[in-house]
């Protein structure tokens, strides 16, 4: 029994690590999409951020400067997206896809040119990485049954960006639902004409929304290359941006529900890793291929039966034209 709890705890522990970039990207997408801008480019911004973080951290030796660089690069890409589809009213899906392609090509090209390691950055060590933090009292309560184990193994011992990611969820909720900016943000995604009539700039609001998205994607990227890993490796975002987007839609564009969807995806991925090659009672060893397909199968099942209708913000994907 205790072994089962140990496996469960380690799976949940891994869930938290795997979900972190998903949560950050989902919150990023929430800001952007709630303002009416489709954000397919989460993946590209995260990848660009990951490269910037690892490259700058390896040169300066500081993970925090790396994080700032990641945010900077990701915000620039977000502004590019904004410039194309807010100012110039371009197609938002096409612009987002272009951001992804740009990031995937540019990171490898710059990586080869600067570091000569086939698109990788040098391995980071010391202060150039975010290390896991032991929360106060983790060791002291480790022996207390259940609660002690949960606190010391599950909650304590992650790096700063993990805690930051979980912290962004209530902050996002507070901004979107409790502030004036949040009210206007939601309004501009539903009915931009009304916002414009009230004398508020639709463009400026949407720009601020994509900047928020850029900041969060940058943090997600820095987590990938300087927290979870110790270098940038080509295409290291591996589709996480798209999964975060799916989680956002799962969560009906609401912070709490999106968080739960991210945790579900993270849990399935962690479970896949844990159960691979393990003999299960009654079933025996499950084939690798089935385990790897499991998250996708469950996604289809959940989407078909349990989630219900997800209603997007009304003005999403529609560029705002002032006079009609």
């Amino acid at each position, binding site marked *: 029994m205790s072994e089962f709890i140990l496996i469960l705890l380690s799976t949940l522990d891994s869930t938290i690590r795997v979900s972190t970039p998903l949560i950050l990207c989902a919150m990023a997408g929430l800001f952007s999409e709630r303002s009416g801008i489709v954000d397919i480019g989460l993946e590209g911004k995260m990848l660009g951020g990951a490269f910037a973080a690892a490259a700058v951290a390896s040169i300066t030796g500081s993970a925090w400067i790396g994080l700032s660089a990641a945010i900077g690069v990701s915000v620039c890409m977000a502004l590019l997206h904004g410039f194309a589809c807010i100012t110039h009213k371009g197609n938002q899906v096409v612009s987002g896809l272009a951001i992804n392609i740009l990031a995937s090509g540019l990171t490898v090209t710059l990586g080869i040119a600067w570091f000569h390691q*086939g698109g990788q950055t040098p391995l980071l060590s010391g202060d150039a990485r975010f290390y896991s933090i032991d929360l106060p009292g983790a060791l002291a309560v480790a022996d207390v049954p259940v609660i002690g184990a949960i606190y010391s193994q599950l909650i304590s011992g992650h790096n700063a960006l993990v805690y930051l990611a979980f912290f962004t969820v209530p902050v996002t909720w507070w901004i979107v639902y409790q502030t004036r900016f949040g009210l206007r943000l939601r309004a501009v995604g539903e009915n931009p004409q009304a916002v414009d009539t009230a004398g508020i700039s639709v463009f400026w609001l949407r720009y601020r929304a994509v900047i928020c998205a850029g900041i969060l994607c940058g943090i997600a990227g820095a987590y990938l290359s300087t927290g979870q890993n110790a270098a940038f490796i*080509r295409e290291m975002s591996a589709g996480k941006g798209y999964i975060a987007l799916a989680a956002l839609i799962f969560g009906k564009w609401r912070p709490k529900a999106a968080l739960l969807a991210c945790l579900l995806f993270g849990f399935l991925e962690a479970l896949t*890793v844990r159960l691979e*090659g393990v003999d299960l009672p009654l079933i025996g060893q499950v084939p690798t291929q089935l385990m790897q397909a499991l998250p996708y199968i469950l996604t289809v099942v959940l989407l078909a039966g349990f989630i219900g209708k997800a209603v997007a913000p009304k003005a999403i994907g529609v560029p705002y034209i002032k006079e009609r």
Partner: protein
Amino acid sequence: MKRQLLVLSAAVALASSAVAADFKPAVVFDMGGKFDKSFNQSVFDGVEQFRRETGVKYREFEVTNPSQREQALRKMAQRKANPVLAIGFAQATALEKVAKDFPDTKFSIIDAVVDLPNVQSIVFKEQEGSFLVGLLAAMKSESKVVSFVGGMDIPLIRRFNCGYAQGAKYAVKDVKVISNMTGSTPSAWNDPVKGGELARSQFDRGSDVVFAAAGGTGAGVYQAAKDAGKFAIGVDSNQNHIHPGTMLTSMIKRVNVAAYNTFKGVQNDTWKPGFNVLGLAEGGVDWALDDNNKSLITAEMKAAVDQAKADIIAGKIVVHDYMSDNKCPSL
């Protein structure tokens, strides 16, 4: 007179260009690039050594996406490069097409078999090298559990896995070997995040030595081992320097020697098409011992591994090859 001179000079030009055309070596690296600290870099070391020793320059290309493989090989052959060295099993299909179109060009491929009259296929007995590092892993393990992280789930990687398991069980009978593959698509070579998670899950299940044969994914595995205070084993190149104190050893595949010999063979006209299988006896595979890991290898371990190596070369130990029947008796 003038005309004769012209013909003469043309003939001289032709002759000299023919000589040059005879020997213009080229190498096409695979994804990962020549500075991947692993497989491709080892090839790069080999061809660089050749350039330094003979002064003959070579053409090179680093493939950065799958569609470039055939294009690159074809370009090299069109520019009269000879021999053309293709790196990695993934280039086999591309090479098969190109080699048929250029029957006069000599091609060599490392890590794959292409059965054509103008192709030399160089393959390694990875199972023998993996056997040795498996033996070391089992002797080093205190928990009697060792593990393996593979890249893409292909027979070649299963061969590493199988040799490793055999070596571990040869050293310690009741050792448990946990094996995981990162994925079933080429992206499994470059997924350090998943590699790290796999390694962590193996550590949770009791493993304290992990062997990664997974290209770029290995970086995540080694990092996880370092963070968790466990041991890791490198692959292809000597990777002991990556994390001294964590890297127990590396399973070396001397692709540098193979690459060097290919160029040298064509230069000396001793190059032959067909199969070229390199094992422990030929020095094609080995285990790495240097300043970075000598404190981790006890005298007892060294004696055992040297004995096993001698026995394999002498044929007293036969390491089963997974690819011969797609089965592994030790797993």
